[in-house]
């Protein structure tokens, strides 16, 4: 019974003397853990399990100017140590986010990163403009969703498009601007450099890997849209490699993600060069995953005699 009570009560990380605060391109985070966009809605759904104000930040589900319906079902498939999704950025539009979700996040005291999506260059800018008077701490520009036909990954694979969309967003806001990169490119450092040169304050990576799953007996794809984004513990090696490559290629801080499930995973990303990490698919496995990851970082630091989590950033010895 004690075990259960403890489990149900602890919505915040445990107390520690380790300094956990980090700065992600001008965004102050009380600890280095946020949520991966699209896995956590705008936080409210998880509030029975996680005090979202205790996270480094909440990164909200991608939002477009007007609502998007998203893709047909089935939208997900389970694969070994991971999953595929093809949600297609279903969202009710920026006005809804502004009216219903952002005030709640502000009221509970969360640090908020809004993930911004668009079908066109102009749409990204319009979404940011619509949010400039709202309680938002940073923007994450989503040029990496693999599940939409326009915008998303189509923009994030092409250097001139990256430069253009990031420059336009940069001109639209003075707030910290994080650019989320796709791993579905030949050389991610080329894209990272383009984002940095166009004014990004930070980059986040990786979005999902483009993949597919097949039902052999029915000779059908498992996803209605045939292909989808691969995430979960299985993608962590790819994500670590790309974070490390980008850390060696750009000066802006990195928000690392891809299979982060435990505190040790988070530490690995930081050693590879990430300033902060995002927990995504793990939220589906464990609704308290974000808090568990923070607790795990604290455990690691205490065991290793690390007094400030910033000591870990890029501390990989190789």
């Amino acid at each position, binding site marked *: 019974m004690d075990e*259960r009570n403890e489990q*149900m009560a602890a919505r915040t990380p445990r107390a520690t003397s380790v300094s956990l605060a980090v700065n992600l391109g001008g965004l102050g985070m009380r600890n280095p853990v946020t949520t991966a966009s699209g896995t956590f*809605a705008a936080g409210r759904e998880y509030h029975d399990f996680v005090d979202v104000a205790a996270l480094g930040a909440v990164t909200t589900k991608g939002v477009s100017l007007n609502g998007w319906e998203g893709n047909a079902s089935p939208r997900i498939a*389970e694969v070994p*140590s991971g999953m595929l999704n093809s*949600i297609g950025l279903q969202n009710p539009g920026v006005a809804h986010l502004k009216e219903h979700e952002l005030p709640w996040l502000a009221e509970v005291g969360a640090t908020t990163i809004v993930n911004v999506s668009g079908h066109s260059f102009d749409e990204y800018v319009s979404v940011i403009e619509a949010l400039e008077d709202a309680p938002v701490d940073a923007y994450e520009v989503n040029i990496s969703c693999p599940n939409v036909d326009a915008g998303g990954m189509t923009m994030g694979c092409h250097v001139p498009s990256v430069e253009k969309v990031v420059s336009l967003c940069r001109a639209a806001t003075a707030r910290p601007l994080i650019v989320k990169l796709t791993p579905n490119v030949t050389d991610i450092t080329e894209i990272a450099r383009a984002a940095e040169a166009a004014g990004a304050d930070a980059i986040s990576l990786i979005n999902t890997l483009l993949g597919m799953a097949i039902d052999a007996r029915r000779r059908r794809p498992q996803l209605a849209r045939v292909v989808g984004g691969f995430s979960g513990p299985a993608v962590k090696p790819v994500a670590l490699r790309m974070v490390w490559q980008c850390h060696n290629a750009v000066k802006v801080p990195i928000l690392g993600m891809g299979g982060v499930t435990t505190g040790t995973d988070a530490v690995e990303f930081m050693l590879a060069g990430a300033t902060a990490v995002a927990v995504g*698919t793990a939220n589906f496995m464990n609704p308290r995953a974000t808090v568990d990851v923070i607790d795990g970082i604290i455990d690691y630091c205490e065991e290793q005699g690390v007094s400030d989590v910033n000591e870990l950033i890029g501390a990989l010895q190789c």
Partner: protein
Amino acid sequence: MTLVNEKARILANACVGPRLWLMELEAPAIAAAVEPGQFVHMRVPLMPERILRRPFSIYARDAQAGTVEVLYQVVGAGTDHMTTLGAELKCELMGPVGRGWQPPAAVSRALLVGGGVGAAPLFMLAEELVGAGVRTDVVLGAQTEAALACRGRYEELLAAGASCGCAGARCATDDGSFGRAGFCTSLVEEALAEAAASGEPYDYVAVCGPEPLMRIVAGMAKASGVPCEVSMEKRMACGIGACLSCVVDTRAGKKRSCVDGPVFPAEELMW
């Protein structure tokens, strides 16, 4: 309503029919709070490479003993693995999740239709209705007699409800091994017609089972002018309303079967 993620102890896990298993778990918080038609999202133990939870409707609960029962059908690797889990193992159950059955407040006569393993999510509703003195009829369909795994409990419950007009369950099996041979939809049609002719028509139909069955029954209820609810089953990831994996098309746009459902008024669905 507060969701919990309970470390539930498996008390029993036994085969009760062809590919049908009954798992009993100790989960006091969920047992106390669960309403008919709600489900739990289970993290299946000892299966680390299959990362997603599995949603299971609650078949029965004993709030005093703090236990819940789940009837599951072996349909894939996850449920196949579940059959190997022994008593005393612990597994995380998140719940109770979702919008359960919501019969009209003034319901006077109800028809419950369960196809295959879909009989289980209706049982707590049947208990609630019979307990409230509502005349309740039950139609069960399955492939074989052995697959009518819930029939015994329904018969017992309906016998206890004889004073409020409950009769025995009408059953159909695909192979004719028990009850009517063929699909149970003919029994539904007859039940609707008989009730209307008797001057005591149904004012609520609830159906759970394969989607084609639910569609047909919903159509029959509509033709008879009876409100109908259905319980949708979709592939699900978070089970909490965040990921939008399990959406269904409704007249009001896409809705999440986990938290906006799993039970929906049939007329809202676009299918």
